[in-house]
């Protein structure tokens, strides 16, 4: 009898977990208040050989979900630019679920209005099938922000940051910050395990850190979140307080880590240097306050580049497999001056 109940408990827990994994709605509007895409009339079907303009373009955009300021700016960029250029955007928020992304991809392939599919992939692998389907259906596919492991023949181009380069730059910047420091122990706050950003930033960092003798003493995922960044940093500090630098793979985790450092009685930015990646407004405020030392920008405003490339591809132009986005490196000293000009 008791056991029976216990099994019920098990069942409920399992069902619950499965529901969490599966029951997100098929499609939701973007949560942000930024207006949903303005539905313009469907482009008039045109004969082949026609030169496409932005007005003829209907873009199906599959966003990862929402995880912070960077992603919000990225989404906003696509929506606003679409309005400016006068193209039709069908936006899909995958709520950070891979299966949502795949099914949205298939829906866009089946949608006769859509001629361009833009994907910000959640995972690096597993895209070959849908990409082949898209190719067969004659859709132009542009990968943005996150690189995928698929033959570059299967999509028009990839536009996004070079995460490895960001990691390498972080290593070089960390070297500068720790110059003269006796020991160079750096801890790493990793993003979602398995995402290309997390993987490549980590490897890139390790490629350049050796130049000045940095060692990564502890590394742990904080899932891009400030709460976890703080908790993980607190645990790091207790396990081994001999830390000179923090490499946070995004701003949120870095800001969380700064709070943990303060609680431990140390001064972030001074006792322990912090480098983060992304360059959101919060990070700039963090630099102005002196908590963060260096922020590597990972530009979220990719839409103009993406739309331009897609138009070229529609008109039959061959594109390079990767078009890097414009990036920048910002330092504490310049933060206050640059901040007002930031748009995200």
């Amino acid at each position: 009898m008791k056991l029976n109940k216990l099994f019920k408990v098990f069942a409920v827990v399992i069902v619950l977990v499965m529901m969490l994994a599966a029951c997100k709605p098929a499609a939701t509007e973007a949560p942000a208040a930024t207006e949903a895409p303005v539905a313009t009339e469907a482009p008039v079907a045109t004969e082949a050989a026609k030169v496409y303009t932005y007005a003829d373009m209907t873009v199906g955009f599959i966003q990862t979900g929402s995880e912070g300021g960077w992603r919000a700016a990225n989404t906003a960029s696509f929506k606003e630019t679409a309005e400016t250029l006068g193209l039709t955007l069908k936006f899909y928020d995958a709520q950070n679920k891979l299966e949502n992304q795949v099914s949205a991809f298939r829906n866009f392939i089946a949608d006769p209005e859509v001629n361009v599919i833009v994907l910000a992939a959640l995972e690096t692998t597993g895209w070959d099938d849908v990409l082949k389907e898209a190719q067969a259906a004659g859709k132009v596919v542009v990968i943005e922000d996150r690189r995928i492991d698929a033959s570059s023949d299967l999509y028009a181009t990839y536009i996004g940051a070079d995460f490895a380069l960001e990691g390498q730059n972080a290593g070089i910047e960390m070297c500068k910050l720790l110059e003269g420091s006796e020991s160079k122990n750096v801890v790493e706050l990793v993003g979602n395990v398995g995402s290309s950003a997390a993987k490549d930033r980590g490897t890139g960092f390790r490629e350049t850190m050796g130049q000045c003798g940095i060692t990564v003493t502890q590394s742990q995922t904080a899932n891009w979140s400030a709460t976890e960044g703080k908790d993980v940093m607190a645990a790091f500090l207790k396990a081994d307080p001999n830390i000179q630098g923090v490499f946070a793979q995004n701003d949120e985790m870095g800001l969380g880590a700064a709070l943990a450092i303060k609680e431990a009685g140390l001064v972030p930015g001074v006792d322990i240097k912090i480098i983060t990646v992304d360059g959101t407004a919060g990070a700039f405020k963090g630099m102005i306050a002196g908590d963060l030392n260096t922020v590597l920008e990972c530009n979220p405003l990719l839409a103009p580049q993406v739309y331009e490339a897609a138009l070229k591809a529609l008109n039959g132009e061959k594109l390079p497999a990767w078009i890097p986005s414009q990036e920048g490196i910002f330092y504490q000293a310049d933060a206050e001056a640059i901040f007002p000009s930031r748009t995200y």
Partner: protein
Amino acid sequence: MTQNKVSLSLRKISDSKLVFPIIALALVLIFDLIFVRGFFNIEIRDGNIYGNLIDILRSGSTVILLALGMTLVIATGGVDLSVGAVMAISASVAALMMNPYVMAKELPENLQKLVSDPNFTYAPLWAVLLVTLFISALCGLWNGLLVAYAKIQPMVATLILMIAGRGIAQLITNGIRIQIFYEPYAFIGNGWAVLPFPLYIVVVVFVLLWIFTRKTSIGLFIESVGVNARSSFFSGIDEKKIKLLAYTICGLFAGMAGILASANIKTSDANNIGAALELDAILAVVIGGTLMVGGRFSLFASVIGALVMQATTTSMYAIGVPANAVLTIKGVVVILVLLLYSEQVRNFFRRITSPKKDVAT
């Protein structure tokens, strides 16, 4: 005779609700004692106490609050999946009330300064807390109405807010992460007075809730409804009102957890605050021995359950478990604890603690 008495009291202990959560917590801590160097180190800095143990309590305070509310809901035979989303809503409301200017695209110079002034808040702190908690309680009330009056299955009813809640939170803040600079608010989640300030909140809230449920008939009625709603109805218990109350309290506590969490990281991180915490809270309650089908509950056991969850997480950070193993290990710990509850294992304990029978009689 004396031996009999000893074994009798042992038997009493092994029958008690608290014993298994405490064993589970002890096991996790013993593991840390053996494998993590200096895990139990405690140091005093500026009169405040720091250490991994304190971290478990502090970081666990949000889950504890959620688990307390969740206990009541689960005891009525329901479940509330929306607590994580309600946390996000409460964090967003609080942040917005303190700092509505960040919503504007461009700000005059004088206001720009104000925005990051640690002493500036738009609404006074008491109003911020009051309104935030009121809105969280409304969220709970909504769940309660769906479950008790619209008779929607709890899992489905609260799933609605679980999904919509984060969207609502983002609508409130216009998708922006609002940073919180106002120090008195940050103190709620961040402050120390010998011990971390959230601990005091948890203790006070726990005592109040305990009094509210155990020194009134509410606890009894919740259990009665959870065991047999029909019999309770025949006995004159207003089952609907009891459920409504449980969900409302659960929402209120989720709101408190949201305040603690946002004050802790000084931002209204609508995307991440409370994400997946509903599961931790549910598991904490289950580890605390409350059955998912409803019935008997123990607030204290749920607190221990929440600490088991948090201790596991904190230990993994301390050990430096590879990132992709973290969730698996959490799952293993939960299964081990639940195995402790199986009747077989309990019988095994009883057999050990019961006196040897004289076969000759």
